[in-house]
């Protein structure tokens, strides 16, 4: 049967089902395959905070969204083009976000009376005509795989578990994608369970063939490759990118890497990755709590390792005292905060940007530290590297802010060559005239000598230090001097902060300023409106302390400035305090990053268009 091929620029597909339905797997396989065929891809997993929420319930729906295209895609997609719904609850939860005329692929056995009831449907939407505005494909996946795998030796439970692979096969067919990436993955993953491996390989193809042969599927879609910079690519999540960024930073610093960490959602994957890197000589301690996590990293840094501690909000709150100690000790340390929705335990699996205040101001006494933020999943690599570079160059703890969205979303990443990256190795002092608080005149970094160095025995600690000698001092003027020196040192980091780039129109009425993970949504809205002829200017910040030198000029240049943030206006307040101009805010605090259309709507409101 001849199928018609349609060409598209970009598509958003969402795999949705029960927590146990393997949607995360289908989604990430689809995203990897799509990226490996040259699309730009942006993804986001979305799952309940319960480990296995009760089957079929509305709050137990787990989903994975993939946005891919031939142009650069910067968000996981606002609205869904294709929804794979493995059960009634997943349809109900996701339908409001499906585009009109969007494709639904529904698994009938997930729409039995039991599931309809759990999803609080009065009648079966697959049958009652309520989906007539969509391109609905109803498939009894369970029967198909059961029939195919009868006699395969698999338990019924294991057979049931292949449903997601079937759905994946259909999706590959729909978008004309090769199976081999997933085939390779199945072979590796189940190498020790040949019957499971074979069943999955079979079902994958079966899904593909089902679509190919079913008259119900009339169209196939083709998305041409995106114009990505030449290079070697892979898909990467923000959390893995942080892990790799630190590994590479340690290599380029010629230092061993040490991670001291305590598990916490959504930062734990960084620990997961790094704990597997023993082959690379990397050490870690899963500490008894966050305080021990950071203190052990400080101890390791004292010994000459690149010290790293990773956490999310509640853990950052616990590390506050030790960060202050690192400020006084002037030892290099990288603190990664994968922000989540707070306050307190809040919504642990949801994203937010509300830790900017604590990162900037959350220590007793005068204890400034450089704060930087990553803007996309792959940017997490660069910013982790950057955090390490600043920490080592200025002998200071550095806070890197990412968030639950960045940590878990993924996109293709051009893998840099090690040789492309700068040498960031520090100099250890070894001369006998060592003075622990003598400073490099340019960076104000203090001199660093390691235990084990003969003749340089010295003592440091959390009490105020005498200038140069580092002896304990309670001298009033010395204290003032040291407080100011520490502040100046952090201000000096400005030497390493690139000027911000202004995107868009110098003569626009409105300047947008974003920071961190909102980049995708703001940029998408910005590009769209400018394509439509709206004049706009846009700056996206990665350096939050110190702020870029040329930022103030831009803020004063534009009549209106809008600062969209996933918080109640923290950056806005800081910019006002510094640049003394009234700014506008857009504050979404819903555990989700912005949708591009939300930004667009606000811009239109502000500009009255």
């Amino acid at each position, binding site marked *: 049967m001849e199928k018609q091929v349609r060409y598209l620029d970009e598509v958003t597909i969402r795999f949705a089902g029960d927590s146990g339905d393997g949607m995360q797997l289908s989604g990430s396989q689809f995203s990897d395959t799509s990226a490996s065929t040259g699309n730009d891809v942006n993804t986001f997993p979305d799952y309940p905070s319960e480990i296995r929420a009760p089957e079929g319930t509305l709050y137990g729906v787990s989903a994975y969204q993939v946005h891919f295209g031939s142009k650069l895609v910067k968000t996981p997609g606002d609205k869904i083009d294709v929804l794979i719904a493995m059960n009634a609850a997943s349809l109900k939860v996701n339908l409001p976000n499906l585009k009109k005329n969007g494709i639904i692929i529904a698994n009938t056995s997930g729409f039995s009376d039991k599931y309809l009831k759990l999803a609080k449907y009065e009648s079966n939407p697959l049958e009652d005509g309520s989906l007539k505005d969509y391109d609905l494909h109803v498939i009894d996946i369970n029967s198909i795989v059961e029939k195919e795998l009868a006699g395969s030796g698999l338990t019924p439970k294991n057979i049931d578990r292949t449903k997601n692979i079937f759905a994946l096969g259909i999706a590959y067919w729909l978008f004309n994608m090769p199976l081999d990436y997933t085939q390779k993955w199945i072979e590796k993953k189940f190498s020790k369970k040949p019957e499971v491996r074979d069943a999955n390989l079979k079902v994958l193809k079966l899904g593909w063939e089902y679509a190919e042969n079913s008259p119900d599927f009339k169209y196939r879609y083709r998305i041409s490759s995106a114009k990505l910079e030449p290079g070697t690519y892979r898909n990467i999540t923000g959390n893995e990118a942080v892990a790799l960024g630190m590994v590479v930073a340690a290599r380029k610093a010629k230092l061993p890497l040490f991670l001291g960490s305590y598990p916490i959602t959504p930062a734990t994957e960084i620990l997961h990755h790094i704990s597997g890197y023993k082959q690379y000589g990397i050490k870690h301690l899963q*500490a008894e709590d966050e305080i*021990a996590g950071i203190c*052990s990293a400080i101890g390791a840094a004292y010994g000459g390792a690149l010290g790293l501690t990773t956490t999310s909000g509640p853990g950052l709150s616990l590390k506050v005292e030790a960060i202050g*100690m690192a400020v006084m000790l002037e030892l290099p340390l990288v603190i990664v905060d994968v922000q989540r929705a707070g306050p307190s335990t809040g919504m642990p699996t949801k994203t937010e940007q509300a830790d900017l205040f604590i990162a900037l101001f959350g220590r007793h006494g005068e204890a400034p530290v450089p704060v930087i933020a990553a803007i996309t999943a792959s940017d997490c690599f660069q910013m982790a590297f950057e955090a390490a570079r600043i920490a080592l160059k200025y002998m200071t703890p550095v806070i890197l802010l990412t968030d639950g969205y960045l940590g878990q979303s993924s996109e293709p990443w*051009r893998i840099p060559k*090690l040789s492309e990256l700068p040498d960031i190795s520090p100099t250890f002092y070894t001369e006998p005239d060592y003075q622990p608080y003598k400073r490099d005149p340019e960076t104000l970094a203090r001199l660093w000598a390691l235990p084990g160095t003969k003749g340089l025995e010295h003592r440091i600690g959390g009490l105020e230090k005498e200038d140069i000698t580092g002896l304990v001092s309670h001298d009033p003027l010395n204290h003032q001097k040291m407080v100011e020196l520490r502040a100046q040192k952090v201000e000096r980091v400005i030497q390493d902060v690139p000027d911000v780039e202004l995107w868009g129109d110098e003569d626009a009425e409105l300047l947008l300023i974003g920071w961190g993970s909102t980049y995708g949504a703001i940029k998408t809205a910005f590009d769209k409106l400018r394509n439509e002829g709206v004049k706009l200017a846009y700056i996206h910040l990665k350096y939050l302390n110190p702020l870029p030198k040329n930022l103030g000029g831009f803020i004063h240049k534009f009549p209106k400035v809008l600062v969209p943030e996933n918080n109640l206006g923290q950056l806005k307040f800081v910019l006002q305090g510094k640049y003394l101009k009234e700014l506008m805010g857009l504050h979404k605090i819903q555990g989700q990053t912005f949708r591009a259309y939300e930004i667009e709507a606000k811009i239109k409101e502000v500009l009255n268009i």
Partner: protein
Amino acid sequence: METLIDNIISKSDITFEKYTPKDFKSGIDVRWCAGCGGYSILSQVQRILPELNIPREKFVFISGIGCSSRFPYYMNVYGFHSIHGRALAVASGLKIARPDLSVWIATGDGDCMSIGGNHFIHMLRRNLDIKVLMFNNEVYSLTKGQASPTSHEGQITKSSPLGVLDTPFNPAALALGSSASFVARTFDRDTKHMQLMFERAAKHRGSAFVEIYTNCVIYNDKAFDFFTTVDTRKEKTVLLEHGKPLIFGTNNDKGIRLDGFTPQVVSLTDSTWSVNDLLVHNEKDSTLAFILANMTYNESLPRPMGVFQDIERPTYEEKVEYQIQREIELKGEGDIEKLMRGFEYWEIS
């Protein structure tokens, strides 16, 4: 995977110098009160370190906050005066990163067992090769005299003007409950015994916890006099020596015998019991160590001094190194560029 610190870690030019105690004095004025038990501890540590055949630059002393935690300032070695309660956490990271260093902790009963309690029990179970000298003066001194977790019930302090209500920790029992491999106790007045304990701790491979009864002349003066003065010591303490029966008394005329699990004092002169009936110390026996630790607050029994337990278990940092080596043997030394490429990558040109 050469790093910048490799030649600091394992330098070939190490010449074991002949040190004297003076080499371990930092020259900074010791700012403890006259008569503080800390002085004697400091001297004994300075006396022992030269004997250990470790280059001076390999020693690191880490402390928290408290009078006791000022210790590192007085030592001419690498010193790290951290924040209250966190010395062991800092030390753990240092020791894992730098197994070549000889890492020591100076801490107080409050620093180690109150705010630092969690790091204490976790470090002991992990068995990092770190020596913990806990100056137990049964009070918070630096903050001018509050109750500590080893203060006794009823003790009057500034924060318990009507008497402490808490049951004190028994530090040795807590350490044993945390699977410590080495647990010992000594006191500030007995310089020889302190030296012995510090030497034993230094030579133990793994976490070594030494509780030192330390007099605070200001906030808890004479707290330990009832068993530590020259007059009381013989009757009120008993020395634990591996393989030896527990004998004590001014004329070595008493001993400790076990009645079931219950230690009791017996006289060796009234011909009911002889040395052969006495409990013989065995540092390898955890149960015995626990029984001895539990003699601590029992006023009818002498206070045990010495090594409660000394058993061997692999250290945490050894296991880390071993895991790294095993991985490298299995998979080869990691290629970072390969790691970066991950499971699947592709070229775009």
